[in-house]
């Protein structure tokens, strides 16, 4: 593939090679222990913490000249932060970028998993704000590490149970906790729980980077990922009465768009590539 040159004065993909090696080691450990949070020497990136520095460090550590990168935020390729991260890597690696899910070898994402199924050889890189699923129950890292070590996840089930007692539903609509490979309870990053089933037995490698919290974790391909639930309150995903106003999809995650100051709204696909592809297919058929 043809790569354009990298911005003068910087190493390929910004980070120096030693740092990339350190991150790759952490990644290997993370893949070997699915769902376990591996501490790593997270670096300052030229973007603010909380804006995807963890995902960017992981991307920088795995990206090569032959890769084709897709970056999405809220499922969309054209949200400002996705645009900014994509142009950063175009500037500092010269690799090809794409908006097509199936054409990408690396997909860096914030808050969504693409609607189109991923395939073998693809890597999905999540930006993670708070990697610790137990953090909002137990603020201390010392305690939560102990809980993971002892597989002491009772508090999480109590939290979910209290939701049911209070609201009649589990009141977690995103960042819904999962158990990976029957062992570690993991935060899937703030994706809607709608996306949780896509993590299970995915043929793609899923990597998670939390820059500010300096943690990396991973789900290897074809690994069991189970959303926590109860027998009498099984896990379920969001449903909409509406369908996409652009492509008519009834099965994708929909964003609500307010149309006027009366609060009237329409729904559109959050995944722009999925929506565009469907529209193109419909036009072809017509």
């Amino acid at each position, binding site marked *: 593939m043809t790569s354009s040159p990298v911005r003068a004065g*910087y*190493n390929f993909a*910004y*980070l*120096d090679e030693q740092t990339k090696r350190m991150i790759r080691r952490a990644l290997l450990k993370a893949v070997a222990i699915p769902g376990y949070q591996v501490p*790593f*020497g*997270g670096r*300052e*990136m*030229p973007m*603010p*913490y*909380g*804006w995807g*520095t963890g995902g960017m460090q992981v991307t920088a550590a795995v990206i090569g000249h032959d890769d084709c990168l897709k970056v999405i935020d*809220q*499922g969309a390729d*054209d*949200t*400002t*932060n*996705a*645009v*900014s991260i994509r*142009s950063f890597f175009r500037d500092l690696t010269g690799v090809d970028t794409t908006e097509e899910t199936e054409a990408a070898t690396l997909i860096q994402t914030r*808050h*969504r998993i693409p609607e189109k199924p991923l395939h073998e050889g693809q890597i999905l890189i999540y930006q993670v*704000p708070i990697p610790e699923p137990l953090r909002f129950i137990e603020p*201390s*890292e*010392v305690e939560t590490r102990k809980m993971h070590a002892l597989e002491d996840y009772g508090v999480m089930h109590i939290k979910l149970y209290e939701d049911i007692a209070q*609201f*009649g*539903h589990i*009141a977690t*609509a*995103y*960042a819904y906790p999962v158990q990976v490979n029957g062992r570690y309870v993991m935060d899937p990053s*703030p*994706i*809607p729980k*709608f996306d949780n089933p896509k993590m299970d037995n995915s043929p793609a490698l899923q990597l998670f980077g939390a820059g*500010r919290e300096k*943690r990396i974790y991973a789900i290897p391909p074809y690994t069991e990922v189970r959303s926590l639930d109860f027998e009498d309150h099984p896990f379920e995903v*969001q*449903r*909409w009465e509406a369908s996409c*106003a*652009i492509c008519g999809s009834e099965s994708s*995650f*929909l*964003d*609500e*768009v307010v*149309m006027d100051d009366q609060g009237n709204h*329409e729904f*559109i696909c*959050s995944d722009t590539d999925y*929506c565009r592809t469907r529209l193109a297919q419909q036009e072809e058929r017509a």
Partner: protein
Amino acid sequence: MYVAVKGGEKAIRSAHELLARRRRGRQDVPELEVSQVEEQLSLAVDRVMTEGSVYDRELAALAIKQAAGDLVEAIFLLRAYRTTLNRFYSSEPIDTDAMEVERRISATYKDLPGGQVLGPTFDYTHRLLDFALLAEGEVEASNTEAVEARVDEAMARVSQLLEREGLMVNEADSGAEPADITREPPTYPCDRSARMQALVRGDEGFLLALGYSTQRGYGRNHPFAGEIRIGEVGVSIVPEELGFEVEIGAIQVSECEMVNGFTRLEGGEVKFTRGYGLGFGQCERKVMAMALVDRALQAAEYDEEIKSPAQQEEFVLSHCDNVEAAGFVSHLKLPHYVDFQSELELIRRIRTADAADNEEDRS
């Protein structure tokens, strides 16, 4: 039908252009030179160097100019540059005993070897706006001798005086390799060197408030400003191929040693405890706050009850970094459509179910 909003790339470009214009200000006012920032806003430069973890006055000044005076943004710029730098050596520990002192005060002794040296300080100034500066009048250096006089007399260290008498807990170099939280993320409880590094990089305002809280009863530790000194110290390295120390330059640092409330130690002796603060340039407020917090964080070592925020290591250290904090707070500006949509769907579902329940109750 709804047409999706496009044009993020163009919007970002325009925003950057507007920012550059805002930073430059009115064209008829001369552009600020980096050297002016370096020379005339030197305390801002010092803060940016300390929290940015790079001792380079020019780069810190550039960061301040580029950030239009937003110091937290400037610290971030410097940190992001720091990541890209190669590390050639770790320096030998600096020796503040050998400091070329320009300011040194002690609040615990009226006089002591080397004396009290005020140096350049805002202390004892009357905080009255000086309209002469508005008229861009130069302040005449009336007595250059007093200004230039450096203190050559040996300066005994207050802490050493107290240590020698056995009145204060000893602090000695353990010889252990210090932690580096920029390479290895801190684990809790963390050792003193990691704690110190986090505090030096920590936000001045945050540490000031925490230090202040200890004075107001949230983890009191009875502090005395044993000694504050500011001046230049040499920095040296030991190149592997040479095997001896080579001085590679000098940096200005501020150092604060607090003498804190005494306690009965394990061996039965009663001694004063201590807190330590150090920073680049002249950053007295920062190092005093740091010393107070350092002492508060030693609570566990002295079997003190840990009940106040300043005493909680994990709380203090994981929230004191302003680059991390500012980043995460500001990320709330990023789109959260998807998460919000998930909540909307859920709250509507709960309300619909509630309404149905109420209907049933009524019928």
